[in-house]
């Protein structure tokens, strides 16, 4: 079942309700302090700084993003030290200067420590806590060391109801579990005992479960608890061995690459490109020779990984068909240290992260066009911050933007040179303002459904009002008229958008119809049975768990593969994005051509470039449809 697709037509009349501020999406947090540290104590009890331990810091952070009650699950022998670790933390972390601090639920949370003998017991405890509490749940590995914004991004984002904190970057590899996501939704996930084909993202140990999915979570936790209660199902242990084999290969390659860099520093900075020479590794991972340090790390992580019930729950949720979204770490700091040395490294690293700067930088939409990214976003984010400090809401900014857009259309409608130039300038101001509203929303996390709708509708309104203005202006001052061109440009643009929407909807539909293998099966392939693949299929660590069985590659697939590989060439990704003629480029074309020439030129360029873009995107989608 895809979501976002409608239920019945009937609209139940509901009392008018202001869209914001939304109540805290998360009311209960469960922290899993079950990973053993070096000294035989829980790794989460390691000290972070003079005033806090890792678990204490995390408990305060989850409380500040809305969790009114925090449960910490740990092993019976660690209960005392975990309680000490929690008591040691300072009253509340300083949130000064945080634009979203108003969203944080204030007050000290109630923290309860619970003992559980093993992962199966952890799962039963999670099921019980989920049943006894209302609202959304946050489940996190207790050793997670990150910035509050990363947790807030997951907890407060209404676009992710149930979801995970994840990254597409290298953070967390190779020890965190991998996931594959498509269109912002996790379609397959790994756990210590489950593999994932073609992973795209890494699960960073924090899972949010919406109220609506609580029953699914409870059922998943109980099911997993039952099948892991007396030993593991067939094939599960092989999977964990396979993963440890992958770690060996990854660490060996990393060490080798470091060695190569020392010898010739400039040649190997290309990450994971298949063209770079690769280290030949023995087929049996146990024969891989590692440094003592790496061996020790693998031994430690090997003791940590079987406790990873958070990842197991992600697998179970995904495989029961729940819609699990993805909240990205962006460029925030994340680590999961389990030794004092790891903490030390994290402390040095985190200093390089300016939370507000990262937040501001990541308020810029990830995949924007060339013009927007290089000519608008660099300064519009500062306007967004200014607007946030002035207390402007995204919807106010959106409204200002559309009014300026109408002013631009009116100026264009004069048809005079001064009008065209004024209109061009106003249109650029309107476009900048339009970028600001989204950045402001992301920066202050004031997402609202109304805001998203207003933004989308007003964007289109602005653009087509400008078309009309240009055509009116042309008729007023020139002999002929350009209404046919204006109508053609309008048609082309709406048809292009309609194709984008429809392609997206069709893909959603495919994802929604996906059947998932049962949770007992380690492989994520339907009907793959229980036998895991041998570890030797590991290629580059770009996708350690991902090797398709060899099968004949069709021509469209080969073309697509080649096309995607082109993205690695510096700059080419921008060319591709420009060809698709996104909104920033369109508005730039309108402004420049209208100011320098006239409306006829504007429409001619819009039609020519738009036509190329339509052909280009159509060709890509056609190939992908054939390749499926």
């Amino acid at each position, binding site marked *: 079942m895809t979501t976002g697709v409608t239920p019945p037509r009937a609209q139940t009349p509901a009392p008018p309700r202001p869209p914001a501020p939304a109540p805290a999406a998360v009311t209960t947090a469960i922290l899993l302090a079950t990973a053993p540290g070096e000294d035989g104590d829980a790794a989460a009890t390691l000290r972070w700084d003079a005033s806090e331990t890792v678990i204490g810091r995390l408990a305060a952070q989850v409380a500040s993003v809305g969790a009114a009650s925090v449960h910490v699950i740990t092993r019976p022998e660690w209960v005392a030290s975990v309680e000490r670790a929690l008591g040691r933390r300072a009253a509340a972390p300083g949130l000064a200067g945080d634009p979203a601090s108003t969203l944080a639920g204030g007050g000290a949370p109630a923290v309860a420590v619970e003992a559980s003998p093993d992962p199966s017991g952890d799962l039963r405890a999670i099921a019980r806590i989920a049943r006894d509490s209302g609202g959304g749940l946050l489940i996190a590995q207790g050793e997670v060391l990150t910035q509050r914004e990363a947790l807030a991004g997951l907890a407060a984002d209404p676009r992710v109801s149930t979801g995970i904190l994840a990254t597409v970057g290298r953070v967390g590899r190779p020890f965190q579990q991998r996931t594959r996501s498509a269109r*912002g939704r996790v379609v397959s996930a790994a756990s210590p005992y489950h593999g994932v084909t073609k992973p795209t993202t890494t699960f960073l140990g924090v899972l949010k479960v919406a109220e609506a999915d609580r029953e699914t979570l409870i059922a998943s936790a109980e099911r997993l608890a039952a099948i892991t209660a007396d030993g593991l199902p067939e094939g599960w242990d092989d999977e964990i061995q396979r993963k440890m084999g992958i770690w060996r290969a990854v660490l060996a390659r990393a060490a080798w690459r470091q060695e190569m860099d020392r010898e010739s520093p400039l040649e190997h900075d290309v990450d994971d490109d298949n063209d770079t020479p690769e280290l030949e590794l023995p087929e049996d991972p146990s024969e891989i020779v590692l440094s003592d340090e790496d061996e020790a790390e693998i031994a430690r992580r090997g003791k940590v990984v079987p406790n990873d019930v958070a990842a197991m729950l992600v697998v179970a949720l995904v495989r029961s068909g729940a819609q699990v979204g993805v909240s990205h770490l962006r460029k925030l700091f994340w680590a999961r240290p389990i030794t004092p040395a790891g903490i030390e490294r994290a402390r040095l690293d985190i200093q390089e992260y300016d939370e507000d700067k990262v937040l501001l930088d990541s308020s810029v939409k990830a995949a924007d066009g060339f013009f927007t990214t290089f000519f608008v976003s660099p300064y519009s984010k500062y306007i967004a911050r200014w607007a946030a400090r002035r207390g402007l809401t995204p919807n106010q900014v959106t409204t200002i933007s559309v009014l300026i857009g109408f002013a631009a259309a009116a100026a264009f409608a004069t048809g005079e040179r001064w009008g065209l130039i004024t209109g061009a300038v106003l249109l650029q101001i309107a476009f900048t303002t339009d970028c600001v509203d989204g950045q402001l929303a992301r920066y202050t996390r004031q997402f609202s459904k109304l805001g998203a709708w207003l933004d989308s509708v007003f964007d289109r309104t602005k653009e087509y009002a400008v078309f009309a203005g240009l055509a009116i202006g042309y008729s007023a001052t020139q002999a002929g008229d350009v209404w046919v061109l204006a109508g053609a440009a309008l048609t082309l643009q709406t048809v292009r958008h*309609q194709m984008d929407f429809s392609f997206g909807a069709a893909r959603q539909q495919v994802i929604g119809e996906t059947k998932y293998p049962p949770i007992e099966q380690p492989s994520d392939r339907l009907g793959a049975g229980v036998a895991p693949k041998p570890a030797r299929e590991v290629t580059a660590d770009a996708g350690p768990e991902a090797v398709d069985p060899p099968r004949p590659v069709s021509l469209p697939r080969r073309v697509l593969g080649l096309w995607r590989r082109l993205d690695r060439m510096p700059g080419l990704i921008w060319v591709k994005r420009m060809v698709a003629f996104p909104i920033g480029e369109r508005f730039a074309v309108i402004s420049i051509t209208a100011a320098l020439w006239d409306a006829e030129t504007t429409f001619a360029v819009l039609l020519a470039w738009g036509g190329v873009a339509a052909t280009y995107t159509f060709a890509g989608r056609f190939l992908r449809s054939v390749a499926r």
Partner: protein
Amino acid sequence: MNQALTVYRDDGQFAVALAKLGRHVPVPSAVFAVLGALLVLVPALLAGEDADESAAGAAVIWGMLIGGLATGRAETGSFRWLVPPAIRLTEYAGLLWLGAVAGGSGVPAAFALICALAFRHYDLVYRLRHRGVTPPAWVDNIGLGWDGRLFVGVLLLEFGALPAGFFILAGIFAAVFVTESVAGWTGTVRSQETAVYEEEEDEGQ
């Protein structure tokens, strides 16, 4: 099963009736949709505004009939995503051509009409995405569906009621679509399902 693509098509009564026929033809709906669009687009580009009124009308009706075979049913097949854009192309290009053939301010009138329709078509997408709902049936009925609008457009042309007819339709549609959509926000419907956010201009990796 896939409501989204069905909603995007914005079908009227003709399309629903034609679909009963189309269902028996073992050809993917995308083929009909693209064929219908070509039946309008090619003569429109070749003959332009000088086309004979009845010839243009006939071409548009043919495009509508063939395109209609693609609609009224649930979308399946790898190319199902082609149906809504092809239908949009048939409709907008058809209306624009009819306006051009009518002469005078027929094209600006068609432009105004298309603007009103574009509001509806974006709104269909956005309200489904952000609120998980579709417009009430009475709005769909007033909107006539893409097929109904093309049919009315041809009638208006044949009876010499253009461009006034387009301006009037544009006014009625704009009033109904915008008012109803805005009203929908004041009595906010709380959807149980999550809004799915997609990037608009996703050019696909």
